[in-house]
């Protein structure tokens, strides 16, 4: 249910979550598009294909991972659209975007921890030359922004009256 407040003047200020959502959303979408290009490029043009910026930004050629980044970015931007229309509940998208970004960063970090055990503890040949940077990806480092927001804005997402007051 969309609740558009009749009295927009008393709504809590959504400028901060909106700005945060715009920045974070675009970063996730750009990284997602880059990762998608790398993934498709690898399939269409062969494994040695190099897409600019993928190296320095640690972007893997992973199509499903790219969809996850695009999805997180879309959640943030969807919220921006609602908040711009004066719908206070649009802040929900910033909150859930933060949560999903942190969940996926957690998944990637756990996968990387598994790889670290393979490389350093079990000395698995397949992981020769593995370093923590081998698994660094946008899904991990971009989550720093949502993490800061999550810690800083705990109170912002506490229950408020539905009319936004």
């Amino acid at each position, binding site marked *: 249910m969309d609740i558009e407040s009749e009295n927009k003047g008393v709504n809590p200020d959504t400028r901060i979550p909106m700005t945060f959502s715009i920045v974070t959303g675009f970063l996730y979408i750009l990284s997602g598009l880059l990762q998608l290009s790398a993934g498709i490029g690898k399939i269409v043009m062969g494994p040695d294909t190099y897409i600019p910026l993928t190296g320095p930004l640690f972007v893997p050629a992973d199509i499903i991972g790219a969809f996850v980044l695009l*999805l997180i970015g879309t959640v943030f931007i969807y919220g921006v659209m609602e908040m711009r229309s004066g719908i206070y509940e649009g802040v*929900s998208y910033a*909150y859930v975007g933060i949560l999903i970004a942190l969940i996926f960063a957690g998944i990637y970090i756990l996968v990387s921890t598994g790889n670290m055990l393979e490389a350093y503890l*079990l000395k698995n040949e397949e992981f020769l030359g593995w370093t923590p940077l081998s698994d660094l990806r946008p899904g991990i480092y971009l989550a720093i922004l949502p993490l800061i927001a999550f810690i800083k804005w705990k109170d912002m997402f506490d229950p408020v*009256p539905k009319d936004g007051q």
Partner: protein
Amino acid sequence: MENREIKIALTGNPNVGKTTLFNALTGSKQHVGNWPGVTVEKKSGRVSYNGYDIEVIDLPGTYSLTAYSMDEIIARDFIIEEKPDIVIQVVDASNLERNLYLTTQLMELGSEILIVLNMCDIAEERGDRIYIDKMEELLATPVIKTVATRKKGICELLDKVIEEKEIEQYHGHEIGYGNEIEEKVLEIEKILSDDETRDKRYPLRWMSVRLLEGDTNVRRKIAGSPVYDRVTEILDSIDQDEYEAEIADKRYLAINTIFPQMCTRANDTLTKSDMIDRVLTNKYLGIPIFLALMWGAFELTFAFATPFMDMIDLSASWVSEYVSSSLEPSWLASLVGDGIIGGVGAVLVFVPNIFILFFLLSLLEGSGYLARAAFIMDKLMYKIGMHGKSFIPMLMGFGCNVPAIMAARSIEDEKDRLITILIVPFVSCGARLPIYVLFAGTFFGRQAGTVIFAMYILGIVIAVISAKLLRATVVKGKPAPFIMELPPYRVPTMKTSLIHMWDNGFMYIKKAGTIILVGVIVIWALASFPWGVTYGSENSYVGSLGHAVEPFMKPLGFDWKISVALIFGLVAKEVVVASMGVLYGAGDNSEALSERIMADPGITALNSLSLMAFSLLYMPCVATVGVIKKETGSWKWTLFAIIYGIAVAWITAFVIYQGGSLLGY
């Protein structure tokens, strides 16, 4: 001092924390989940307290006692027929108004009621205030506050139970339904009282009201009575739908009158649950988020488990080598090395995957997300002729198909229920996971997690297509409307998640020591005889068996060894991997098994995809077949489920293998 006995029944709306309270009272570890319908059978436990031996019965959750679904009938029949000393209605304090509807019905049943106000923490956090004294006064029923997850208020509850038992004071309360209905109630009551043979456990007023509401279950109970015709005459003279609505209205009127006196609710607030729901149930974002989360879960199940699997491999390899080299005679070394360690070990290696999968499923379930998954899929489900509620048993099927099929009991409509029972076996359970991990890990490297995820999606897609097909052919009709309460999101407790993980993971380990052990010994014997043949060769019995079914399996890309493994997989899916371990003589080493499978020219990435799809779709295991028979009560549908499953598996594997071959893979 001699122990005295008290029998109490826990009842209440679904997902109000009955099983959590049951566990807190009895020290049991029954499965709890944050969605309606976790408990479908009554469960019993005991607690000794202050000289009393208290039997606690946990009943399935019900919104009312109207007996529209099987779990409602189970709860109602127990309260009436078993006559527990005290019926404890567990009430969700954050949803008090709606929970009181059941209270009004329990009062009519004439039970000794005690109300437990659970989840008070959630209500208080929201700013609600409940006046316990006023509530006790208005309902004429004792009320106790608890937070069952933190075991708060448990001793007070037990003290109250004992106190109520000792004073044996009945707190009666009746709702007036207006002159017209009351006249009919009295008339039917009088007629029923003329029947001396009637079941006296059923209160006359309650029966009369239920009959006027059109309760077919109660009507059946009096079908053989000499007064049946007289009752029917009255019932036929009224509009039962209108009466049912009027009676419900009166109950709500009573609730609305007393509710404001016992509770003040905080302003309608935008809670975190509301915020999360706004996004996770969004019509555009809901399904992609669900798919992304499921993918994340399977990626983690595969990738994070790998080092732990390798650790089991390494530590067990030396055991295998030591045992094989030190045992005499050679047949015994072969039995232990090739048979038991090769077979059972091949299954045990996947314990980390199973533990991680169940832990993640428990987190999803405990958070309340599974209920949302059913909600976002409802529109799609309805379009294909399925009931939205069917998605919950399907999701439960990711763990094990047996409880998932039993969970279909919460579906009221018989046809919806039957379709759900028939399609749940297509949902990939934990027992299929080792097959995917073995073959996806062998042939798809770092993409293994995605391939495994694809198998789970394939299972759901096939289930959905099957539902559409069944609805259009053998189980015609329209699905019933879907109404489900979305529980509030909660942070799942680590303890509950770990218990769930351990219970299911341990079941897997137990299976390895029982049914799988027997299976591998049988396979070893078939691979070793007739006497003198090379172990596992084509001349052995197992070779002959494999060759006998090979023509049927050849179009799917399966050689005789895979065919044999799939035949034994009929007992339990884990036996497929165990059989491969025995037939490839890999010992307790999944890497060695992978290497030998990779080296077998008869198995390629395409064959492995076909094999994974076939394993996913053909008959899950004998336990699932047993529960299909029990739940449908029909051999015809059980046989149908088996044959249909095998046919679907064969066709899907055929399309994958032949299609892939045509495309040059």
